[in-house]
């Protein structure tokens, strides 16, 4: 079910995920379809056209794949449709221009699967995405879908299923890495009905789109996982909680639920097994904190999405006080594969304590951005430099931020860290839901900490003191430091506040919120000291602490900087190097970007 199951028939897969749709991929589909239909008898084998979910390469979108040759085109425009039809579909010719450029080797590749970006990945959760039409249940079934459900219902007892999931070593992909099998076991044990299963599709991390892509591109994998889980724990009702902005995810999951009912996979007496399950969709409450388990359940119950203490676990008293299993989208999508191929196979992938794969959204200062799925245990270096193709513009790597807004920044010295739940934790960061933002030398780490704290200060629900007031005061201090008003004792105060926020806050948001500050202080303390003591921002980001100077020896007098300066602050006398008038400079950095000789130096706060 994980192997590729390529049709022999000529098929064109056109990505119609949110990213590609925004770049007119649906029009491309329609145009191509028109061409194919108009051609009628002219083509010997009429290609099948399919719209798929997000391929995770939105920046290169719209993307299309032509099977069985597996030709992969990116950045396709409507104006390319004729040529694709004439050349590739009719004559089998490849259009160089549209091929994927493998940054690592500098070569164009016919199939993106030949690129470094893809070669090192392993797809389990994303097994079908981009390969099937998410609106077509047949596509899913053809690739082995719902086979695991049949096995679970007719060949396994609920305890056997739970055992299998437990033995597989699957841990929750929504953040904390809680062992899924153990969670199910707890819920199964409690003799109180009704029980519920919930899929957490809130995905509030800014910039993350792992879960969206699964919900849009392969909704049946989640539904199949939920049916198996519900059967195992004895739940008869399930909810898919989807972030409100995810319109296409809502549409595709709704359609999938409807089709699953139609095929007897949902509803009463599923496939004649005697087991009943209903699943419905709930639209998210629109706040980051609504992804937190207790806030999410409050939101489903129709109350304000605020967390509550959970000294009693949701598996005992969850939704409406009843035993509830809440798992993340990606967690659920892994379940059918585990049941189908067995715990042994699954647990052969990954590290000792983190099994299987993890989906990441790799973004920031890295050449290949997009969704990737890798076995647990690959190193950050492999992800950033092999899969991600390194840092653009020949710049130097500085840090990678993992785990979403309340994750931590990991420095170069830890790049050989194998990525799994425990090692990221140990580094002061976390797996979170799988955000990965690469930063280079032009990122200021104090500013990065400030940025995340600002986000968290707005997204904290505001219920408990340490989180609401603590984040706010930490932010106040960071803003001061960035503005050149930092004080010597600030670092100590930040660490002290961090302890209180982390230990005394009510929910996971507050408990993790200090991570961006703690890790940047731990690994980039010199940047804090430069801001506080020398009144200088080494990265040249904090405007109050930055001025520019043109290095007279490096300046080749090309004058590019003077042309680019929007403030007219750069001038020259004949035959002498260019100089910056600090009184006119607005510290926008345009000159520094423009200078090809690295002649523009970052200095401290301007004098006077």
């Amino acid at each position, binding site marked *: 079910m994980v192997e590729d199951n390529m049709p022999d028939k000529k098929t064109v897969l056109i990505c119609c995920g949110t990213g590609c749709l925004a770049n007119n991929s649906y029009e491309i589909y329609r145009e191509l379809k028109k061409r194919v239909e108009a051609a009628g008898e002219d083509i010997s084998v009429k290609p099948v056209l399919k719209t798929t979910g997000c391929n995770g390469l939105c920046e290169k979108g719209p993307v299309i794949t032509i099977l069985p040759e597996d030709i992969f085109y990116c950045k396709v425009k409507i104006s390319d449709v004729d040529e694709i039809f004439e050349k590739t579909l009719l004559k089998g010719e490849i259009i160089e221009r549209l091929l994927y450029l493998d940054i690592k080797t500098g070569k164009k590749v016919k199939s993106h699967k030949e690129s470094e970006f893809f070669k090192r990945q392993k797809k389990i959760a994303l097994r079908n995405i981009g390969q099937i039409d998410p609106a077509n249940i047949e596509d899913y079934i053809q690739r082995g879908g719902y086979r695991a459900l049949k096995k679970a219902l007719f060949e396994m007892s609920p305890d056997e299923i739970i055992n299998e999931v437990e033995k597989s070593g699957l841990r929750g992909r929504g953040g904390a890495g809680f062992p899924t099998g153990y969670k199910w076991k707890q819920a199964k044990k409690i003799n109180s009905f009704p029980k519920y299963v919930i899929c957490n599709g809130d995905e509030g991390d800014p910039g993350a789109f792992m879960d969206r892509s699964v919900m849009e591109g392969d909704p049946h994998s989640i539904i199949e996982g939920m049916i198996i889980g519900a059967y195992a724990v004895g739940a008869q009702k399930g909810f898919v909680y989807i972030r409100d902005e995810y319109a296409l995810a809502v549409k595709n999951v709704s359609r999938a639920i409807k089709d699953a009912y139609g095929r007897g996979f949902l509803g009463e007496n599923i496939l004649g097994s005697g087991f009943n399950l209903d699943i419905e969709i709930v639209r998210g409450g629109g706040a980051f904190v609504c992804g937190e388990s207790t806030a999410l359940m409050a939101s489903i119950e129709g109350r304000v999405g605020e967390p509550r203490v959970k000294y009693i676990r949701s598996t005992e008293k969850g939704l409406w006080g009843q035993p509830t299993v809440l798992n993340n989208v990606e967690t659920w999508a892994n379940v059918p594969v585990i049941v189908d191929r067995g715990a042994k196979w699954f647990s052969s992938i990954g590290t000792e304590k983190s099994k299987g794969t993890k989906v990441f959204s790799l973004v920031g200062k890295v050449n290949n951005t997009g969704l990737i799925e890798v076995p647990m245990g690959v190193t950050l270096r492999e992800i950033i430099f092999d899969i991600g193709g390194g840092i653009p513009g020949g710049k130097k790597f500085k840090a990678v931020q993992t785990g979403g807004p309340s994750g931590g920044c990991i420095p170069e010295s830890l790049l050989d860290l194998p990525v799994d739940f425990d090692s990221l934790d140990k580094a002061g960061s976390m797996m979170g839901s799988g955000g990965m933002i690469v930063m280079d030398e032009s990122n200021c780490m104090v500013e990065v900490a400030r940025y995340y704290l600002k986000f968290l200060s707005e997204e904290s629900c*505001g219920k408990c*003191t340490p989180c609401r007031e603590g984040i706010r*005061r930490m932010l106040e201090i960071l803003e001061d430091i960035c503005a050149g008003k930092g004080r010597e004792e600030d670092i100590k105060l930040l660490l002290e506040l961090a302890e209180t926020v982390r*230990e*005394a806050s009510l929910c996971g948001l507050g408990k993790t919120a200090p991570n961006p500050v703690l890790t940047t202080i731990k690994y980039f303390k010199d940047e804090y000291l430069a801001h506080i003591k020398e009144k200088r921002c080494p990265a040249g980001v904090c405007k109050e602490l930055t001025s520019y100077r043109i290095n007279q020896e490096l300046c080749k007098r090309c004058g590019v900087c003077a042309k680019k300066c929007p403030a007219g602050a750069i001038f020259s006398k004949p035959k002498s190097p260019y100089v910056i008038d600090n009184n006119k400079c607005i510290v926008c950095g345009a000159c520094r970007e423009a200078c090809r000789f690295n002649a523009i130096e970052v200095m401290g706060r301007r004098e006077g």
Partner: protein
Amino acid sequence: MKIKIDGLECEANYGEYILEVAKRNGIHIPTLCHTDALPGQGSCRLCIVEVIEGGKNKVVVSCLYPVTNEIEVLTNSDKIRRMRKNIIRLLAARAPESEHIRKLKEEYKVPEEKRFNVDKGEKCILCGLCVRACEAVGVYAISSVNRGITKKISPPFEEPPEDCIGCGACAQVCPTGAIALKEFEGKRVIWDKTFELVKCSVCGNYFTTREQYEFLKQKYGLEAEEFLCDKCRKKSTAQKLVF
């Protein structure tokens, strides 16, 4: 079951909150958002304690942590004192005008604030008790709005709340005296809304607002006789019982 609080052996019932057990055994843990009538917020975090269970320490709020094992509790460890002091410092920067918070500040020797931009004129610590109290009355006149650092307690549209009956329950539970309730010349003002007070037809003292009286009458189906304040009603009931 037996648990140990600050070295003292205490008897606890399964599921009982640490705070209750401590109270019964004369151990004081400071609280703000907890009242016996309206438990369960867990918002102020002042009542944090350390729980040692299976060799591991964790920080929990004593007002909501149920005893289910033979645990050891530290209500006043260095760590707890340090964090409690920080929490009071944060609250004091947020609500500098509250007498109660000022006292806590003195008690925990929190120095005068020199680093944070202290909020001006604020008394509310956003504990949420007032909203709970109003809900308990059955009125739902006020609620918390916004989230994060802009959160506040407010009537709808920040106007005098239409549904408010002026009962004053919110002002009564507020631990920091943040809700102004003024009475003069037979009137009560709360949430910028003015209520007419009614007099007890026996003793002649003002005792409630007309709106509250009507509300209770409707809610409990009381007969519309004269206005009786609590004291006089008790007296009259007692008299009825005697004769």
